C-alpha cells in the first residue's frame, strides 16, 4: 500500500494539474482507499499550507479541494496583471441570493413574499451567473420550480459548504439586541442606505 506521504504528494500534484476543485471521491478511487482517509489527507495538506503561510493555499468547496491564492496577496497579483473588473451583485440580487441560500429549496413565490416584489428577473440573473439553479419541483399547486444555491456560490462567497453559512439566529440576534437602544444604531443604517 502506498504510504501516506506519497499519497499526499500525489494529491498535491493532482490538484495542481486539475485546477478546478478536485473531488475527494475521485482522489480516493484512484488510490482505492476509503473516502474518509483521502479527506483527512487533503485536510492535513490544507493545514500544512496554512501553517507555513504559503502563497498557495488549499480551499475546500463541497467535499472538493483546490489550490488558490491567499486573500492578502491579491494586491500583488493585481499589480502583476491588469486588474479585472469584477462586477459585484446588486442589492436586489444579494437579497434574493440570501433568501435562496437560507431557505433552499425555495420557490419564487416564497422569495417574492419575503421581498414584497417580483423577483423573476433577479433570479434569472443569478441563474446566468450560475450562483443558483433549479433543484426540483415543489409538490404544491402548479408544481413550482424550487431554487437552490450552487457550488459556484460556495466558491465565490468563500463557504466550504452550506453548513458554514452564519446562523440566521445570530443575525436576528443583532437586530433584537439592538432593539432597546435602536435609535442610535438604526440611524447609522439609515445613513448608509442612500449610497446604494
Amino acid at each position: 500500500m502506498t504510504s501516506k506521504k506519497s499519497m499526499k504528494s500525489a494529491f498535491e500534484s493532482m490538484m495542481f494539474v486539475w485546477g478546478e476543485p478536485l473531488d475527494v471521491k475521485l482522489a480516493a478511487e484512484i488510490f482505492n482507499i476509503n473516502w474518509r482517509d483521502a479527506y483527512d489527507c487533503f485536510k492535513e495538506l490544507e493545514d500544512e499550507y496554512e501553517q507555513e503561510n504559503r502563497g498557495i493555499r488549499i480551499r475546500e468547496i463541497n467535499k472538493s479541494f483546490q489550490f488558490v491564492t491567499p486573500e492578502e496577496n491579491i494586491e500583488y497579483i493585481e499589480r502583476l496583471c491588469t486588474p479585472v473588473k469584477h462586477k459585484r451583485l446588486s442589492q436586489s440580487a444579494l437579497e434574493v441570493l440570501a433568501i435562496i441560500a437560507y431557505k433552499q429549496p425555495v420557490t419564487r413565490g416564497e422569495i417574492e413574499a419575503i421581498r414584497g416584489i417580483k423577483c423573476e428577473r433577479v433570479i434569472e440573473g443569478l441563474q446566468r451567473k450560475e450562483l443558483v439553479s433549479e433543484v426540483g419541483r415543489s409538490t404544491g399547486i402548479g408544481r413550482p420550480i424550487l431554487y437552490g444555491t450552487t457550488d459556484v456560490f460556495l466558491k465565490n462567497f468563500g463557504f466550504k459548504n452550506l453548513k458554514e453559512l452564519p446562523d440566521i439566529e445570530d443575525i436576528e440576534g443583532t437586530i433584537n439586541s439592538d432593539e432597546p437602544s435602536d435609535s442610535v444604531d438604526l440611524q447609522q443604517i439609515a445613513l448608509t442606505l442612500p449610497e446604494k
Partner: protein
Amino acid sequence: MGYKVKLGIFEGPFDLLVYLIENAQMNIYDIQISEITRQYLSYMEAMRKLDVPMAAEFMVLAAALIEIKSKMLLPRTAPSEEGPAAEDPRTDLVEKLLEYKRFKLLAEMLQQQEEQGLRIMEKPQEDLSVYTGQPDEYLDLDLRQFVSAFNLFLRKKKKVEEIRKHHIRSEKQRITAEARMADIRDFFREDPFREADFKDLIERKDDKYDIALTFSSLLEMMKEKKLEAEQKYIYGDIKVKATEFLIKGESDDE
C-alpha cells in the same frame, strides 16, 4: 416631518417602508401607522409627479397600510370580553418587515463575503488532453447542451444538403438553350403534324430551371417562326405546333 426623497434606490415596497421607519427612528414593534402611512403615500405621490413608474406592489402595500390604519381607529375589544384581546392589526406587517430586514442583513453579510471571495484567485483547469494521450474525449454535456448541439448538427446537415442540391442543379445547367431547341426540333421531326403540350417538351417537370429553359427555347423558336404556340386562357395549357419552316428548314440549321 421632512425627509429626503431618494429616487430609485428602493428595492421594493418593504425596502421603502423599512427605510421610512428607520429614518423616523421608530421602534419596529410599535410603528406609528398613521405617520408612516402619510410618509409612504407622499413618497408615492412624489414619484407619481416625477412620472416614475411604480410597481403595482407599492400600491398593494399602500392599501395594506391604509387598512391597518383604519383598523387601528376601531376600539379594540375589551380584554374582559370573550377570548383574548384582539390582535394588534400591525402584527402581520411587523412580522413581514422583520423577515425582510433579516434577509437584508444576510444580504449585507453576503456582500462582505463576496468582497472577500473576489480577493482569492483560482486557476482554471488547463487543457488536459496531453495527459490523457488518447484521442477519445469524454463529453461533459448536460441534456440541454446536448440537444442544442444536435440541433446545430441538423441545421448544418440541412445547409449541406441545400448546397448539394444547388451543386447538382448547376451541373444540369450545362444543358443550354441551343441543346434544348435541338431536342424540340427532333421531337417534332419525328412526327411533323403532332400537336404537343408545352409540358411534354420539358424533360424534368419538377425542375424550375428546366421549365424556364424550355419556355425560353420555345419563345426563341417562335421568334424564328419555327414553332407556333397557343394558350386559350391564362394558366391554361400551351399547345405547340411545328411550322413548315422547322420541318423543311434543315439546311438552314448551322
